[in-house]
């Protein structure tokens, strides 16, 4: 069944969609910025991009993005439960993306917890959450690009 087209969205849904896309771009960029590559590969040399090599700043922006992403995800889940599921079904690609997004969020939460003072995880678990956070993000990125190409959306209209 054909998934819902973006042009069928209302104004507020479009705004939220763009907010979500923008949020993922910012999170992805600042997430990659946690690796010391922006200075090495001249990104920070682009006029106006010197901030990209400031690890504390990109980290803070990443946290800020996480704040809004958590709010948006909570909104989307509850909105779907309360009203969306009456009329729509999630597509298979949506379930896959939700799984990857869930992985990003859960490992991200543990990463934030790890960074708090007095919270110490075992070396193995620390390594696991660091690598898996990156892994889930890469999986989400590639799956999102793939589903964009094959035009597979998140929901299909229920047929009665």
């Amino acid at each position, binding site marked *: 069944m054909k998934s*819902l087209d973006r*042009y*069928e*969205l*209302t104004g*507020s*849904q479009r705004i939220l969609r763009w907010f979500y896309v923008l949020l993922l771009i910012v999170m992805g960029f600042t997430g990659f910025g*946690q*690796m*010391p*590559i922006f200075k*090495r*590969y*001249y990104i920070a040399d682009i006029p106006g991009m010197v901030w990209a090599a400031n*690890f*504390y700043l990109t*980290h*803070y922006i990443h*946290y*800020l993005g*996480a*704040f*809004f992403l*958590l*709010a*948006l*995800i*909570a*909104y*989307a*889940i*509850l*909105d779907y439960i*309360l*009203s*969306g599921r*009456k*009329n729509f079904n999630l597509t298979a690609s949506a379930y896959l993306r939700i799984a990857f997004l869930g992985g990003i969020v859960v490992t991200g939460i543990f990463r*934030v*917890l*790890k*960074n*708090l*003072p*007095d919270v*110490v995880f075992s*070396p193995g678990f*620390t*390594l*696991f*959450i*660091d*690598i898996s956070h*990156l892994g889930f993000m890469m999986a989400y990125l590639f799956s999102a690009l793939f589903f964009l190409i094959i035009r597979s959306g998140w929901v299909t209209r229920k047929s009665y």
Partner: protein
Amino acid sequence: MPNKISRRSFIKGGLAAIGAVGASSFPVPATVRGAPQEELATLIDIRKCIGCEACVEACQEVNAPKFPAPKKPFPKMVPSRVKVSDWSETRDVMDRLTPYNWLFIQEATVIVNGEEETFTFPRRCMHCQNPPCADLCPWGAARKLKNGITRIDADICLGGSKCKVVCPWHIPQRQTGVGLYLDILPAFAGNGVMYKCDRCFDRIEQGKLPACIEVCPENVQKIGPRNEIVREAHAIAKEITGHIYGEKENGGTNTIYVSPVPFEELNKVMEKGPGRPHMKPVEDSMAHADNLAKAMVIAPLAGAAAALGKFYKFTKNGNGSEELRK
């Protein structure tokens, strides 16, 4: 060729031996024995340090098996502006931090009561309570242990030097040509391994003292539970009308210095630069992120409240769900 023993090294060796015997006669604190889970801190009373460098030599000797053995020639770096860091030909450098020297003696000559006085004191990783090097390491190679040690796992580190950049004292030092990056994309990602003091984590696991503490002939350093160390530091500072460094710096560290002279004075005159950390006041580097992390708890609640508000609005208007554009 016979070994030459200079007078200086003889005195130093003698003092070290006395220190080792002295230290071994002191019981290792119970909390240090057998991989303690309590946060331990070290107290460094700089009045006692005579600058003999016995601690530096002991550190090098004990940690020699952990030192890098780089493969040469180094991989060509891309882009070419990425510089290699090679200390393998200058392993005997002792007057600054290097991948082969995790502890050095810093010196400051100041005027005390109208008289010139020189202070020497060991410098190494501060082992922060909330270490930005471990928090911001993208690979989990730098980590804090429950006993207050921050260490870098040489088997995982890619040598990106981020830990050095974010460290307020720029402590970790890089050696190129060694480590995991050689097995991944040596030209394009990574540049070796970062090295720094691990406060002899392996010796502490075995119930031993860190080498620098054990060998010190003057008992300059002491290790114990952080709250006890802080209490003792304050007691000494009160007694000598002295000053403390490391208790509050960067939100708190596990290396507490006590000095009769303000640390601002010492910092002004001591040699600083690459591999020679400062002693300036340091604000908590992770404070802003930590505050935002705590605020994240309300984010899902705000999102859920917005969804409930929307649902309430639509049900009130007699419309159970938002219609899609036709």
